[in-house]
């Protein structure tokens, strides 16, 4: 059969028929959706470990768990090349301004994963009168996905990354943009 393009300016009815005919072959989506699909499948995390959880983050990238299967293994040493910050470890009060600076240095669009109890709420180090840590990463920046555990297993981190990928594909941005 094939699609016949009428000469001259098409009427609305003709356009509708055209779209119907092309539907099996052409996907009409917003460019942003396509971009999000690309972004979700090639996350570049920043090489950045704070404490114990960082070891599990490294384990996730290594031989057995192989984060490369999900397209998120290109750990970048520079924040300017990264679009994902995996907050792995305890954020101390001395470190908090540094984390904030790193986050600000990352270009938009960017996402973050709070890995482990420490970055969710202060975790094991939170108690009345505690003086040394920031009680959760959300005190200083936006967090997209929380992965609980102390430390979370590599499978948990992978699940967190997959959740984030879903979220990116749907084009959703939550919370503050800071």
């Amino acid at each position, binding site marked *: 059969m094939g699609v016949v393009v009428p000469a001259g300016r098409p009427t609305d009815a003709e356009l509708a028929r055209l779209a119907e005919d092309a539907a099996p072959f052409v996907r009409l989506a917003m460019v942003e959706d396509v971009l999000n699909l690309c972004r979700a499948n090639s996350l570049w995390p920043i090489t950045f470990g704070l404490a114990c959880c960082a070891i599990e983050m490294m384990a996730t990238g290594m031989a057995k768990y192989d984060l490369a299967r999900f397209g998120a293994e290109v750990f970048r040493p520079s924040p300017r090349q990264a679009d994902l910050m995996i907050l792995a470890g305890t954020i101390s009060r001395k470190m908090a301004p540094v984390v904030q600076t790193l986050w600000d240095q990352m270009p938009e669009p960017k996402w973050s994963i709070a890995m482990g109890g420490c970055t969710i709420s202060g975790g094991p180090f939170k108690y009345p*009168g505690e003086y040394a840590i920031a009680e959760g990463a959300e005190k200083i920046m936006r967090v997209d996905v929380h992965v609980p555990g102390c430390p979370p297993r590599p499978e948990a981190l992978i699940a967190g990354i997959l959740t984030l990928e879903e979220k990116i594909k749907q084009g959703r941005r939550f919370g503050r943009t800071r």
Partner: protein
Amino acid sequence: MTAQTPTLTAEPLDTYTLNMGPQHPSTHGVLRLVLTLRGEKLVHVDPVIGYGHRGHEKMAENRTYAQFLPNTSRQDYLSGVIYNNAWCEAVEKLAGIPVPERALVARVILAEFNRLASHLMWIGAYLLDLGGWTPQLYTWDDREAILFLLESVTGSRLTYCTGRFGGLSRDLDADFPARARVVLKKLKDRWQEYEDLVEGNVIFVQRTRGVGIFTKEQCQSYGVTGSSLRAAGVAYDVRKVEPYGAYPRFQFDIPTRPESDAFARYWVRVQEMKQSVRIIEQALEQLPDGPILTERGLGSKKRLKLPVGTQYYAVEAARGAYGILLVSEGGTEPYRAKFRVPSYANLAVMQDVMPGYMVADLVGILGSIDVIIPEIDR
């Protein structure tokens, strides 16, 4: 020249300052080094620490002895079993709690496996620092085998908390020795591969030979311990000098090397892994039957009260001598707990060692001493 003329003589004009860290892929966490350079030469190195300070020592005063147990394995998370055992042993010693034979030997087995895992991780990370990606995949593969084994006993991969006052919370199961031997066999088959891959590598040898030399005076002045000290020709190992737990029963050597350079530290760690395998093999042979926790069940007793006193207890952790100074005033909580962590001294000595080297050697030297920053910052 009038008094108002601004002078810049405070800083010699031919040097400049470079900030490295706290986020730098080769600082193993959150260390910051303020470098003063003349051209490419290091003139002054000033480590800035504290970016991982979590207040463990204050926490210890706010927790009962048992509640503090999980914290110990989060200080040096790469040798969590050793730290966990050390806390238990320090408390046991002050409280006079007996430990069953089986638990003593099982602690040694777990601790040595943990030491192996820690050294393997170090080898991978160090070679990555020097630019080699591949060895890391091998060492992590071996490490995962060990972690799988430890997980079957302790239930966790990294932050172990199996120690109890008076033994261990879980027993080694019946097929543990068989599974452990499989892992040991796998490791032993790998030694040759590591040697070929690393020690025969011209780039590695050239980048590590003759850099980062510690003198014995520096080691004494800073209290350097662990593999870094042994690579400087001093056979100091707490397991031998002040034997604790079940260590006196086992035969093992202390590898030393006189050169004290980064290569020597690599070599010593590899030899130490072989000795750890040797210890585990003997321990598996000698593993006695019997209970794993003392009858008094102090492992779960929450209101454990310790007699008044100050107690120092030292063990050999993966990075050197780890010491716990425990002050008890007779309560259910420590009055004060101080942790003498090996990385602290091993990093502090860098101020003296580094000046004079090229900036390109810095990562090679820093990596070779194997520091864990949250342990230093506590």
